[in-house]
């Protein structure tokens, strides 16, 4: 069977999907081209054949569906509460837990030695030695002044 250049349009013609201007030309072409005529008739016949024979649906199916839906309706309050808990409360509880964990981590960092040894000065973070931190944070007493002046550190 040869592949005619009109075969694509012939298919559209068979399903009335081509424009009026092409219709006339293609209809005339059908008398000249045996292969296109065969394709056209194939699709015309195909439209008259039920693709799939559908059996009748069982009468009981409708009632089976009604029963199933009734069972869903009769779901107890506890079931609904339980599913609500799972759907709504669990994510909220997880969010709160994560919030506390993150909070605790931030707190722990702020009070950690490493953090306390860093001093922001003029936009820069200066890391202090333990000795420097002690001087900064302790109350200025005479002892401390003497210690700074004559201490061996």
């Amino acid at each position, binding site marked *: 069977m040869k592949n005619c250049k009109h075969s694509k349009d012939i298919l559209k013609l068979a399903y009335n999907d081509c424009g009026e201007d092409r219709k006339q030309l293609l209809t005339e072409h059908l008398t000249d081209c045996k292969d296109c005529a*065969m394709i056209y008739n194939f699709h015309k016949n195909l439209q008259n054949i039920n*693709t799939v024979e*559908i059996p009748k*649906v069982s009468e009981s*199916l409708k009632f089976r*569906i009604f029963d199933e839906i009734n069972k869903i309706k009769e779901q107890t309050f506890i079931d609904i509460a339980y599913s609500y808990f799972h759907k709504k409360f669990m994510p909220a509880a997880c969010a709160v837990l994560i919030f506390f964990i993150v909070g605790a981590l931030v707190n722990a960092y702020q009070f950690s030695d490493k953090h306390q040894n860093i001093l922001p000065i003029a936009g820069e973070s200066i890391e202090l030695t333990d000795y420097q931190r002690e001087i900064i944070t302790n109350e200025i007493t005479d002892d401390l002044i003497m210690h700074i002046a004559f201490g061996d550190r």
Partner: protein
Amino acid sequence: MVETERVVIEEIINGDTRKFNDLVSEHIDIVFSVIYSYLKHKETSEDLTQETFIKAYKSISNFKFKSSFKTWIVRIAINTVKDYFRKKAASKNITLVEFPDIPDTRDNPLKIMENTEFKKFLDDTVFNMPDKLKTVYLLREQEKYTYEDIGAVIKKPIGTVESRLFNARKYIQQKFIEWAGL
């Protein structure tokens, strides 16, 4: 969407779930028909019809009134069938379709179409067609849906519907030429 259908659905959403039975009675045939077109097995099609309505009942509060209930329920039915095939493929329990023998009609090739063998050939060809083409083809040829309605079911523009339908018809034509040895 028909106004009465909107009222019925709103009543169901607001708690009058008995009204859902009316929707089941009205649409059970079309849902079964669409599912059966894919499966060609009555009992399984009935099970999936039931599953479709239960899914629809459980998610009716998500119905947005953008399409008719029929379009919506047919979309759920097609997705239910796809899920069924996905599960079946996962369990590697796929049946291969064998094409029937070709009857001898050398004088007129299209005489084949009158034979029961052709009916079997057509059934099997549509059954084996790629899913995207099959859905559009069955909705158009079997259920006589308009292009607009098919577009609403598969959530694609009319141009896509037209091109898939053309490809589906071309697919059947090609398979027929191969099968009949033309």
